[in-house]
């Protein structure tokens, strides 16, 4: 048994990092991620984390330094948010291409302009293609636990891919709740020290972070892609091993809630899933056959799980906290692609909400289920709808 504590999401992540025994931490503070940097700095100072804390002048440098550390075989942690994440964009691709298994927390926050420090998913969703594994957590406990799991996945020799752990800014980073902090010995049992051949080594010199030419670039990129696909199998396996040691489980790439006989399903990402669960419970009590499908990993994308969970339902609402300007919500595009491949004849609607920190209430979720039912009852529905806007607009007409 671990130790019970009342922590915020940022502090829970810091505890997860401590238990992962990193060698190097390089991060630059930014709201709403600042507290994780502060706690880790304190832990390094008081000796509870025996890591080198690299003070850097920017996020670009934070991730560059992380790559340098990872390239000598060090277990490395970083964290950022929003503008900091997009400032890292160049290095994100570098790190995944170099197969450096860095773990980084991202506090999901809106992107400027207009300037906003509040939460939504536009930062990480806009970087879905940077080659990082992306997981989204629902509460502080999952955030802590996923740091340990992330290293186990990232460092697997057949994966060697960095992991971005996404916590909703403020809603998770700043909310205090009950957290179980695992024992140090249990963490050691779960996460052995990082061993890799992908490092600068005087005894086994090799060429790293090199150039490619048209004759071999595709082969490198294909290997990188396969590493990410390998993670797909490893994620559920890792969670199973985690459960056998710590007694907690999060499922695999997705988690289905009351979906077994459901006719209407809301697909959600991140902390809003909790509100969706609460509404599903209420509607179930009122006789509705509803469920929630939580997407935990956006990359690798859980295509098979989504098809299995949704192919026999009547209608699906995908809740996006982002817009891919000129099209629709990014989560919707991905879910729709999976379902289309399965040839499933399902009503699919996209709901965009929670941008720039706007609250998504239980009434909003209820409204989503109601719109699905309306659609099934023959009342025409816009393909893309906006929560809390007050009017319905569909760009595609």
């Amino acid at each position, binding site marked *: 048994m671990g130790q019970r504590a*009342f922590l915020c999401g940022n502090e829970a992540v810091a505890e997860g990092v401590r238990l992962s025994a990193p060698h190097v931490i390089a991060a630059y503070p930014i709201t709403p991620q600042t507290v994780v940097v502060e706690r880790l700095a304190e832990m390094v100072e008081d000796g509870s984390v025996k890591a080198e804390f690299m003070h850097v002048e920017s996020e670009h440098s934070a991730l560059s330094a992380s790559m340098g550390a990872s390239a000598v075989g060090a277990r490395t942690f970083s964290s950022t948010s929003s503008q900091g994440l997009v400032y890292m964009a160049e290095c994100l691709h570098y790190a995944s291409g170099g197969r450096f298994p860095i773990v980084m927390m991202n506090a999901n926050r809106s992107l400027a302009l207009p300037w906003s420090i509040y939460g939504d998913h536009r930062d990480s969703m806009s970087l879905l293609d940077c080659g990082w594994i992306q997981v989204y957590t629902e509460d502080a406990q999952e955030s802590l636990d996923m740091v340990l799991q992330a290293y186990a996945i990232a460092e697997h020799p057949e994966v060697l891919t960095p992991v971005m752990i996404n916590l909703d800014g403020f809603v998770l980073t700043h909310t*205090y709740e*009950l957290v179980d902090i695992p024992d140090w010995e249990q963490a050691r049992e779960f996460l052995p020290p990082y061993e890799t051949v992908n490092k600068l080594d005087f005894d086994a010199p090799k060429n790293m972070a090199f150039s490619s030419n048209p004759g071999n670039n595709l082969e490198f990129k294909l290997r990188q892609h396969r590493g990410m696909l390998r993670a797909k199998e490893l994620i559920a396996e890792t969670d199973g091993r985690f459960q056998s040691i710590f007694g907690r489980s999060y499922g695999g790439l997705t988690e289905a809630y009351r979906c077994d006989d459901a006719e209407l399903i809301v697909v959600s990402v991140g902390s809003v899933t*909790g*509100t969706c669960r*609460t509404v599903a419970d209420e509607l179930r009590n009122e006789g509705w056959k509803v469920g929630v499908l939580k997407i935990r990993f956006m990359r690798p994308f859980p295509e098979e799980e989504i098809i299995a969970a949704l192919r026999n339902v009547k209608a699906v609402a995908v809740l996006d906290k982002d817009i891919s300007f000129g099209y629709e919500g990014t989560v919707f595009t991905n879910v729709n692609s999976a379902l289309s491949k399965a040839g499933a004849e399902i009503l699919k609607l996209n709901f965009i909400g929670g941008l720039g920190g706007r*609250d998504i209430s*239980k009434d909003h979720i209820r409204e989503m289920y109601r719109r699905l039912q309306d659609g099934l009852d023959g009342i025409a529905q816009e393909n893309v709808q906006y929560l809390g806007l007050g009017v319905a607009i569909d760009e595609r007409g």
Partner: protein
Amino acid sequence: MIEIRWHGRGGQGSFTASKLLGVAVTLYGSKHALAFPSFGPERRGAPMQAFTKIDDVRIRDRSEITRCDYIVVLDETLYRQELLSDLKEEGKLILNASRPEKYQEQGGSRIIALDATSVALEILNRPITNTAMLGALIGVSGITGVESVLEGMSHFLKGSLLDKNRQVVSRIYDEARRLQDEPTRIAQIR
């Protein structure tokens, strides 16, 4: 679920009060809780809110609190009568007021007014009323035992600050308990 909203100004410790309550009911009680601030930048002096949700089971819904069991107002200048419409049917507004009797007619039994600032000034030498109003809330509501609050305070306060704030909580708690038995429910604590 018990839903509490704290109203104060940046620097007055509303968020700390919401956390202290959360620690008390979780680590020193057997309940679950979420404690969070109104999301945004923290600016000294600017009106802000904090929230505590308490339940016997794990709390999944993280949306903001709009209907409150208790509204605790740390700063009298933030009180307005419209706040009462955010209360649930049996809800109560607990107000720090320099002249508590002023609010007797406005809210009837829905407002419980106490002069927390005087107590804070006397014991802490500073007009910081977050722990005082926490004591008042516990006294009025009985959400948790005062012992759990006094113990839990060690998680966020240390040294003489902890001792003095414990005195503040005990003092106001007793007063608030006494108020529960009085019809007027106002107090001038000296």
